[in-house]
């Protein structure tokens, strides 16, 4: 996928994420690219030209979930709100039906999981961690803990307790997906690192809502949702920067990555790799556009490799 118009020699984009080798630094954001549905829509051309260097699954839960009632989408200035509500087939159907095809994509697979209790997370981590073809597990911690009622991802103590209970269950890298809806995400990230997380990823969507233009109601069936897209990029960059400065485990940066320049901004802010979310909806090949654009941006800025940019500290 080298752009024939690009000038200069090819730049080495290979990297790794806590032991997961990656041909390039661009993943998808969980829940923003369904590789199996995309294969149905685009056929095998998708596999020949898979847009991401690693694939992150949609978040799965122990039990199947139907997701939220409509409406689930609202377009906002330079962004969108979603209130999808984590529809997924549940752990066993995922393992039996989806996992096989997902391991055939030709890139490392990271499975995203969520539960509302530590035993729930443990069940997911053990089941997924025991399957062939899984390279890592992302822990989506934005759900309220059924025992404490607290949102796990908002409380350092909850994160510590969760990670300690999971750490012994798998040798796979555990990536904690942070919520942006806290005053100091770096405290959560530091707690995750101390308790054994191998990486953190951020940002998830920012709490948001929309009012129906024609009635006194919420537009979204669930009453509220999360904001993503270029509108949130400045917030994501600030959080990635604060978190990167606070931890030494790698950071997956996301939130409004749309092109090579925005990807480079995340790398300079401290991210090791980036993930593309909302932009996939605007362009199914966005992952490649970002990858190729990053190569171009590195070249323009005089970096001779990705590693050089990853190592450069922002002043």
């Amino acid at each position: 996928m080298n752009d024939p118009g690009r000038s200069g020699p090819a730049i080495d984009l290979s990297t790794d994420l806590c032991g997961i080798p990656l041909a390039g630094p661009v993943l998808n954001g969980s829940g923003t690219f369904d590789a199996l549905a995309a294969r149905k829509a685009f056929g095998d051309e998708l596999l020949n030209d898979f847009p991401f260097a690693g694939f992150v699954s949609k978040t799965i839960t122990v039990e199947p979930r139907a997701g939220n009632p409509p409406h689930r989408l609202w377009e906002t200035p330079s962004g969108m709100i979603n209130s999808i509500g984590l529809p997924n087939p549940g752990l066993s159907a995922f393992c039996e039906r989806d996992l096989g095809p997902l391991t055939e994509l030709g890139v490392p697979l990271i499975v995203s999981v969520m539960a509302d209790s530590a035993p729930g997370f443990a069940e997911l981590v053990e089941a997924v961690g025991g399957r062939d073809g899984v390279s890592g597990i992302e822990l989506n911690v934005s759900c309220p803990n059924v025992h404490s009622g607290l949102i796990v991802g908002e409380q350092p103590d909850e994160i510590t307790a969760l990670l300690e209970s999971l750490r012994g269950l798998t040798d796979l890298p555990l990536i904690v997906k942070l919520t942006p809806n806290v005053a100091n995400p770096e405290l959560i990230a530091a707690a995750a690192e101390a308790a054994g997380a191998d990486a953190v990823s951020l940002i998830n969507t920012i709490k948001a809502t929309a009012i129906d233009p024609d009635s006194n109601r919420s537009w979204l069936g669930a009453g509220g949702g999360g904001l993503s897209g270029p509108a949130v990029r400045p917030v994501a960059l600030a959080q990635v920067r604060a978190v990167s400065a606070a931890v030494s485990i790698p950071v997956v940066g996301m939130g409004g990555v749309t092109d090579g320049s925005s990807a480079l901004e995340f790398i300079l802010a401290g991210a090791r790799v980036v993930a593309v979310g909302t932009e996939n909806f605007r362009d199914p090949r966005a992952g490649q556009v970002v990858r190729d654009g990053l190569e171009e941006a590195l070249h323009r800025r005089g970096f001779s490799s990705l590693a050089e940019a990853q190592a450069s500290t922002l002043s």
Partner: protein
Amino acid sequence: MAAERPIAPFGRRLCRVGESHATGGYRIFSLIDEVGPEPAPGQFYMLTAAGDWEGAGGRPFLPRAISVARTSGRKGAVRLDFLIDVVGPGTGRLAGLVHGDGCHLAGPFGQGFSMPKQLNPDAAGAILVGGGIGIAPLAMQRRALTGRGVASRTLLGFRDRAHSGGVEELFGCEETRLAFEDGSSGHTGYVTDLLLRMLDGDDSGRGVVYSCGPPAMLEAVRRICADYSVPVELALESPMACGYGACFGCAVPLVRGGYMRLCVDGPVVRGDEIASAMAGEAGAG
């Protein structure tokens, strides 16, 4: 048992606008697609005007789902015609496209209409019931039926003359029966009056119905067909971010519980799959 499904080239592609013109209250424009397959009737594309898509107030931001209304082969390319009803910033931009402008296209996506025999092995013919902008996919289906030698009758309803754009152009000299709510011509009232009359006079067990139009019309058609036990396929709408199954945003509630992704398992759905054709409406659910 659904119709075969053309596969979209991976990604989006920049196409040129062939021509564009006003028709009734709507606008028709064509894109020349040099890469994609011939779409099936009822399929749709995700469109993004190149260059100046994002407009005042930061919208449109996402691409817009638009049904294909007509196709015609050109040497090494397909010409795709779209019928646009301007309701907001996205359709406004698309309606402003003129010859030579660029427009990104992804698709064709989704499950289109079935053939009558797939819905009812005894089916002898079809009735197409449409209204407003919903006539676009029906025009495609009518041509496909005619092409396969399947008899069909077309019933179209409009609020008034100003909202009946595209009929002559898309249905040409094929016979259509029209209803106008304001009585400006044809039958005065709803298109569902025409459908009821037709089903009452028919051996309805031998037909199938295809419908596309405003949610209230679709829901009335769905109920009538259920009452008369006539198989019906409805082309629905719902807000879509991606069109290819990535976002799970286009959920439509199913009778059997849960939701379908309309962009993957629709936009054409069987009447008996859904509890209501109005579920995608504001605040529904």
